[in-house]
Each structure stands twice: as C-alpha cells, then as structure tokens.
C-alpha cells in the first residue's frame, strides 16, 4: 500500500514537471480521468505549444498571436469532448471559446470529420473580438471533394461581409472565394491546393492574404501566398463556425466535408509567421501520424 501510494505521487510529479504548463492544463481539462490521451498525443501537443511559444519570426510569438487553438486530438464519436477544448484557454465555457458541435460529426484519431450535410462547430468567437485590420483563421484540411466553407461567418449572402473560407472542387464550379474582416474578394483561387494548413490573414485595411499549398506536387510543403484586394469592414457580433457558414446568426449553409485536424483563430500573420505556423502544425500532424503530405 505504501509502495503504491508512493508510486502515484512520483507519477504525478513527473507528469507535472514534464510538460509545458499550458499543455498540461489542456490535458487536465480535456482528459480529466487521464485515460484518453496517449503519450504520443501528449508529446505532440506539448511540442506544438513549445514551438509556438519559441517561434517569433516577426517579433511576437505564434502562441501569443492566437486566441484559440483546436488541436483536434483524443476525441471519438462516442466521446467527442477532447476535440472541443481550446488549447489557449481550456475551460469548458463558451467564454473560453470551446467548441460545440452541431450535427453528425465523426470524431476519430484523424480529428473531427464533418458530413457536408448538417455539421458545423460553433467557436463562440465573434469577429468583433478580433481586430478589423489584424485577424487570421487557420484550418488543417484533410480533403476537399465538395464545395463548401471550412470556416465562415457573414452578415448576409448579398454583401458577404465577414469571414468566408471556401474550398470549391473544380467539378462544382472552380474558384474558391474568400474574405476576412471584409467583403468577398472578386478573385477566386482555382489552383490553390486544398489540403494541409490553409489560412486567411488580414494585416492591412486594403488587402488580405490567402495561405496554402498551390498546385504542384502533393509532397510540396511550400507555403504560397495569394494577395486579395479587399477593404476591411465593420465587425460582426456573430460567431465563427468551422465546416460551415454562419449567415447572420439565423442560417447555416455551405456545409463542408473537409476533415479538420487542427484549427486556430487569432491576429493577422505575415508570410514569415504563416510559414512558421505551417511548419509547426505539419510537425504536429506528422507526430500524430495523420499528416496528409
């Protein structure tokens, strides 16, 4: 009995001392019984946190620039809870921007897989908690054989002011349109590679950037930037959805089937920061053996 008690104390001390405090807080919140996360999963999340805190290619760390990070690890369809927690604030509260899923998602070691028919996830992050001229959204997409929004919230379908992150299969009409903190840009992207870490980022009032791997070899990890002319617009008191588009808070449409292995929301990223984030997230996915390139 004494030996067993001693062993438990030793184990807790090692765990507490072994991981970054923010990573450990996430593990404790998302897996309170300690029965869900494997050592591989914990090591991967911890390495991602440490790398985000260490990487500051333009002055501020990647970690400090994000207000929500969804690692999409440890969940199953029967127990989706680990996929709901925000690594930046792992309290089980709307105010902590933890996800609530709507519709019939499949949750697995690949992440959260929407069904393109009725699935969305509410981040509880209204665009008006971000800055009009400094905001970014990120989604690690596993596939794209449909035309839909991987992240979205707009005021209405006429002016389309807000965030719209479309992946459009060529068989459904070609160009993928987008916007962030403004109206939809006239230019679409029919060549953008639609898997891996994809991002929209605005760091000026007149332009935003779309990040992703453009057409090329599947193994290409090069992050390409597309500039999109778009004047920033007033912000919305409406939450950003994953895998669908929140239209005015009353309609949900453009349901996606792009599996989500990571998502994040924060302030605007320049190209160097986007490349750093891409490397960190790709390393994270590789550690979990679910990288798609």
């Amino acid at each position, binding site marked *: 009995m004494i030996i067993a008690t001693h062993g438990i104390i030793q184990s807790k001390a090692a765990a507490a001392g072994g991981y970054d405090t923010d990573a450990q807080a996430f593990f404790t919140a998302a897996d309170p019984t300690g029965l869900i996360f494997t050592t591989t999963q914990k090591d991967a999340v911890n390495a991602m946190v440490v790398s985000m805190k260490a990487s500051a290619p333009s002055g501020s760390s990647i970690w400090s620039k994000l207000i929500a990070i969804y690692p999409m690890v440890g969940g199953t*369809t029967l127990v989706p*809870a680990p996929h709901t927690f925000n690594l930046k604030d792992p309290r089980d509260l709307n105010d902590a921007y933890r996800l*609530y899923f*709507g*519709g019939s998602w499949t949750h697995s070691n690949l992440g959260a897989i929407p069904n393109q*028919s009725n699935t*969305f996830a509410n981040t509880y992050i209204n665009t008006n908690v971000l800055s009009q001229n400094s905001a970014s959204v990120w989604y690690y997409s596993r596939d794209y054989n449909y*035309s839909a929004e991987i992240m979205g919230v707009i005021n209405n379908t006429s002016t389309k002011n807000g965030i719209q992150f479309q992946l459009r299969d060529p068989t*459904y009409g070609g160009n993928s349109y987008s916007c962030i903190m403004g109206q939809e840009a006239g230019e679409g992207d029919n060549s953008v590679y639609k898997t891996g870490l994809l991002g929209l980022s605005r760091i000026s009032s007149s332009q935003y950037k779309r990040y992703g791997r453009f057409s090329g070899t599947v193994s290409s990890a090069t992050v390409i930037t597309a500039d999109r002319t778009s004047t920033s617009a007033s912000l919305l008191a409406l939450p950003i959805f994953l895998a669908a588009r929140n239209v005015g808070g009353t309609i*949900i449409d453009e349901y996606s089937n792009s599996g989500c292995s990571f998502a994040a929301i924060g302030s605007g990223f320049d190209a160097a920061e986007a490349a750093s984030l891409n490397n960190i997230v790709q390393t994270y996915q590789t550690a979990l053996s679910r990288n798609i390139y």
Partner: protein
Amino acid sequence: MICGILTNEQKEIVTNQMFNDKSYFNPVKDNFDNWVIFEQEMDCKYPEFAFVTTLPLIEFVPIPRPI
C-alpha cells in the same frame, strides 16, 4: 448517406437540444422537404429523445445547390 426522417413535431422537439454532452441536433431539409438527421444524432442515449433511434431511414438526397 442514410438519414432519419423527423416529423415536424419531432423536429421542434430536438432543435437546439443536445444529443451528447458536446453536440447539438441540427435537423436539415432534404430534397423531398423532409426534416432529417444523421447517424451520430440517431445514436442519442438521452431517454427524452429515444424516438430518434427508431426513425424511418432513407437515403439522403440534398437540395441541389447553385453552381
């Protein structure tokens, strides 16, 4: 993809309700004007929504979207 057909009354009962501790029902219309939900929602273990486990099943036909 298989879906379960809800009556209008059942649709009102499940709308904005949760089918597990982290997920909401989200009924949508199919191309035949039925309200439907899908597999994971029909796996609901909450007794007040037990009716969703025995819904009539059909193949889901989405409403065509404009190109």
